[in-house]
């Protein structure tokens, strides 16, 4: 089970596998929906985390039906962002460093990160 959704009156509950979704992704996705829902993140059974989303009274009707999809898509996007950051974060930091404090040997730094220059 990667993600199990349980619908409840006025909201839903999702059990997420920690093997697939990192804590940062879960928090970022929950934060992204915090204008529409009251959210809670708590531990579930070993290896899982439980997210409860309760729709706020102020949540527009048009969004109510979409919140569940929105959350699941957001979660995937946030996890992908973390994965991409693992791949390219070092290059991003190198670009910023090179912009403000140029390295003596950029080629060597690039090779160290990318494996080629």
């Amino acid at each position: 089970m990667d993600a199990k959704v349980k619908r409840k009156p006025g909201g839903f509950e999702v059990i997420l596998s920690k093997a697939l979704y990192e804590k940062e992704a879960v928090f970022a996705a929950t934060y992204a929906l915090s204008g529409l829902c009251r959210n809670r993140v708590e531990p579930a059974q070993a290896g899982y985390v439980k997210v409860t989303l309760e729709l706020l009274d102020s949540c527009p009707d048009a969004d109510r039906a979409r919140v569940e999809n929105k959350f699941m898509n957001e979660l995937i996007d946030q996890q992908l962002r973390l994965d991409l950051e693992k791949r390219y974060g070092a290059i991003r930091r190198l670009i910023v460093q090179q912009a403000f404090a140029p390295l003596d040997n950029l080629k060597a730094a690039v090779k160290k990160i990318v494996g080629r220059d």
Partner: protein
Amino acid sequence: MPFRFSPVASNRMLVVNEVGEFIFLDRQTFERLVSYDLAPNTGIFLDLKGKHFVTDTAVTPVIDLLATKYRTKREFLKSFTGLHMVVVTLRCNQRCNYCHASSQPTDQQRWDMTPETAVNVVHKIMESPSEVIKIEFQGGEPLLNFEVVKTVVREAKRLNRKKNKHLDFVICTNLTLVDAPTLEYCKKEGITLSTSLDGPKEIHDRHRLMRTGEGSYDRFMQNLHFSRSILGHDGVNPLMTASQESLSHFNEIVDQYAALGFQGIFLRHVNPYGYAQNDATIQSFVYPMEDFVEAYKKALLYIIELNLAGTPLVEGYACILLSRILTPFCTGFVDLQSPTGAGINGVIYDFNGEVYPCDEARMLAKMGDRRFYLGNVNRDSYLDIFTSPVLQELIEVSCVETLPGCHSCPLQPYCGADPVRNYAIQGDLVGHRPTSDFCMKHKAIIEFLLELIDQDDPGVMDVFWSWITNRTLAEVRGEAPCSN
């Protein structure tokens, strides 16, 4: 290469890199991009390569190039505070509905900046490391304390004989008090006027009232023509403030700006704080941001049409964003920068010498919350003021790269943060992006511009380039030689 992404309304992925190059991809292509499944000889790979999202050749030159672009985009950090707003008096002969929280009756001179304070203000200004200094006189109505305006101009020019900075002066005036000697002085000293025009008479007079209660429009128009006759046509530049009533009249407002021959218009949403909460007109200023954005989008398309039909008129806000999107250059815009421009790019000196990072912070102080007080020119040194813990905190909490919600947003390179607004509206400096109307507005408008650019309509793009490069459509199209 690193990039950020987000799904957009057109069911595509918006992908933007660290320096603001962007591309829209359909879902399938996006998935192939992130799974390294794009063949190097395909058109889409070459598009992505041209924008530095991928590379199949040497990596170091690409990183070096991106670093150069990144540095250029952040150039505004190098110059430090260039815009210095000086409130020479709180007195005003008008009593507009937007700002009565701070404007004072004309007979109360105790709200005037003294010549001594003015000299101390100038000394602080001229200590700024910025090579380009703009001194903007604000009020109240600055012309009510014109002797202090003159003191500031005289002292700044005297000090500048040694400093040799590029010095500009602007007086923000409602124009109702201008007379020939004032205008002749402005002409002699190279001072331009910035003023307020909300639209045709009915719209303008709804909120821009004289202290006696009558509208200010007729006197404004008379003095606009008079001012232009002395300062030249472009010596007066107006700003408009959108109240709820004006949202459905944006086209008429645009028409009026065009008819008066102004070079541009800045469709501006009013800041909903700084007003007394019990104000009878508060409804005019606290309206849903969605309404503003919708009106803005329609008006922008209308302005583009006007340009294509031969009436040149720049929409200022779009022009700033388009420069950020389409050029490698930096565009300092105090209201939308990362870190915030408040304090480090613009600063405001109140009539009593108190210094605040922006006018909204000054307004909060007027309402009793001195959270953003940076110091006083009569007591504190330049370093005390500009390295104050308050300013450092503002900078720390306004880098979009580290803000919740912004940290993964692809619009980062075009956007910014406004911690003072976050504090005033949401109660803390960091703010809450999912419910922030600042975020909602910028996201909607930036994505709208990106979609327009992506549609690549030759006419629309010509208009955009004419705005960014300050050229005519004919010049952009190569039908006339460039005049600048």
